[in-house]
């Protein structure tokens, strides 16, 4: 178990290193120059050169890369080109909101997907099954910004039931604060849930259909268990194993989706930060944000694996051997 975990963490770190390097390289091969974005017409040539030197952009690429890595090892993510704030401070401000958004979306999508997936499997080849399939196909193929803008217009502008942006209303405290945060969270979460649940539902349906023919489900019925109870205790419980396991894969697409959702709903998370930083060619912020997202995806991937081990007793033994 410990050895497995160690190996998993080492692989994660290697992946992270590759992600860092790729981010660094991709940013440098972009055709535009970050200094040109910061320049304003009153600046002299000397000012511009000083600015370039200040951010180390005059050095060769290899030196920049080495300095970047060295700083990373010391835990320094750099200073934002645009706001002159440390990147770590910017990230620390935004991360909790991204976490809140993504975890709510993932949890709700899992719950909704498991529920609809088991319902579809139980009534396979009925109208309900077809309806769930249709909704899943729609949800899985919809583009986050289109759905987001539609909801924003409908519920934020046309019928202004929900706030159109931000994370909370300033000055609200106590229980009202929690309710206010939830109201702000509702639309971006809904969009992410709507595009994520189909993955869970289809996995749950397929796994459960297989389990419906399993001998142990027949044993459960032969004990005198109600069909619905047998299905949850011995069917859904077992089908959860492969279903939960795809969370690790879904996290990647979810964090991509959350960049779009945060941007549309002006939700100040890491995704929105990335969107802003791209406009300003703010290398340090982009590097820091991608690094953070990659780290989170890798970390949650490891957590998913651990969860998988908890759910699946046969693996536990294999790892101990």
């Amino acid at each position, binding site marked *: 178990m410990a050895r497995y975990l160690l190996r998993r963490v080492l692989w994660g770190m290697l992946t992270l290193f590759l992600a860092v390097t790729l981010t660094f390289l991709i940013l440098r091969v972009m055709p535009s120059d970050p200094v040109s974005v910061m320049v304003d017409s009153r600046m002299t040539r000397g000012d511009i050169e000083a600015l370039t030197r200040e951010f180390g952009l005059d050095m060769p690429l290899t030196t920049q890369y080495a300095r970047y890595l060295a700083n990373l090892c010391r835990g320094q993510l750099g200073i934002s080109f645009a706001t002159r704030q440390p990147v770590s401070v910017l990230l620390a401000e935004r991360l909790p909101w991204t976490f809140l958004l993504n975890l709510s979306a993932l949890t709700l999508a899992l719950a909704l997907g498991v529920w609809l997936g088991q319902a579809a499997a139980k009534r396979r080849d009925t109208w309900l099954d077809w309806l769930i399939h249709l909704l899943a196909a729609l949800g899985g193929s919809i583009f986050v910004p289109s759905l987001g803008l539609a909801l924003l217009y409908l519920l934020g502008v046309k019928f202004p039931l929900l706030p159109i942006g931000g994370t909370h209303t300033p000055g609200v405290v106590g229980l009202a604060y929690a309710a206010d945060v939830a109201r702000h969270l509702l639309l971006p979460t809904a969009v992410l849930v709507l595009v994520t649940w189909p993955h869970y539902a289809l996995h749950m349906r397929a796994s459960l259909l297989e389990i419906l023919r*399993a*001998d*142990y489900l*027949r*044993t*459960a*019925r*032969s*004990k*005198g*268990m*109600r069909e619905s109870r047998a299905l949850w*205790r*011995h069917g859904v*419980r*077992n089908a959860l*194993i492969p279903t939960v396991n795809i969370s690790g894969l879904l996290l990647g697409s979810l964090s991509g989706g959350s960049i779009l959702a945060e941007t549309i709903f002006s939700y100040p998370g890491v995704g929105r930060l990335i969107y802003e930083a791209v406009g300003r060619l703010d290398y340090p912020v982009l590097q820091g944000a991608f690094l953070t997202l990659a780290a989170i995806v890798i970390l949650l991937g490891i957590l998913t694996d651990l969860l998988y081990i908890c*759910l*699946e*007793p*046969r693996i536990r*033994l294999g790892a101990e051997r």
Partner: protein
Amino acid sequence: MLNPLALVSEGADACADAHVADACVPDAHVADTCVPAAHVPGTAAPLLELREYSLRLRRDGTGLLDKVSFRLGTGEIVGLIGESGCGKTLLALSLIRLLEPNLFTVAGQVFWRGEDILAWPEKRLISWRGKELAMIFQEPMTSLNPVWRVGAQVAEAIRLHQPVGVKEAASLACQALRQAAVAAPERLMRQYPHELSGGLRQRVMLAIAMANRPRLILADEPTTALDVSIQAQILELMLRLREETGASFLLITHDLAVVAEVCDRALVMYAGRVVEAAATRDLLDTPRHWYTRGLLASLPGLDGEGRLPVIPGAVPAPAQYNWRGCGFAGRCRRALPRCGREPPPWSDVGAGHWVRCHAPA
């Protein structure tokens, strides 16, 4: 007679018996299929009685079981034998009512202690299944849920039918496992099925089946997947459990050695019909149906001499069952012209030995 339990007292009077009378109109056609009664001394009413129980596929009406009739008394171990594809497992699954009701139609009656279970609502079935009637399956390797501990799976069966708390259910489960001759039940309770051998898993299945002290256990080839020494242990365990709890067993098998070892009586099935019913000794010593003879002849002896006589051909698929005549006629060396056309009637060939054959051996 070696086994007094299997004695049939009434013989040919079966049709006149109070229980069977209404099912057997004195009409030539119906009388054909009349019940080979096996009365058990000491039991006024049988535990389980099937009367002309038939099962068909709802979709296209394919016949799967044809007018199966037999009785099973308290404390009896009855063997149900026949090749694969004769409908043995189907019969058991349909007795415990685990077949999808949308897919099958049934006819006839199944009496459980005098009540027709075919008329029971689902609620009644759920409180009966697993409590009064339990089932053990052929595949010990896959019949337990891989993600629950053994203890939880046994305790679950107990809590479904007995008003006990979690702790009490666990201690009852431990007792049930001990009764199933598990060496270290406390340890086993905490293990997962994949950590156990096939024999041990089948003991766990037996413990689950016995947990609520059922009156009847349907054992569907419980030893087929196990090696011979484990097989003997499981059979011995079944005999002991009968002694201790008075439970009856319907033992489905294609292994005649198993029947010889533990069964009081045996029923031979072919192509969805019961074709011969007799006390075990009687059946094995003097089989009267040509199918039973074929089955017995194909048993390998220990001397290893000569070629094994096999029954030519194979059990037809249900769609090809010939119920207009004798189902076995196509493979029978002694078939007469009428065997393919007329269903053979039940005939009592003495001492409770019943056979459905136009020309019994």
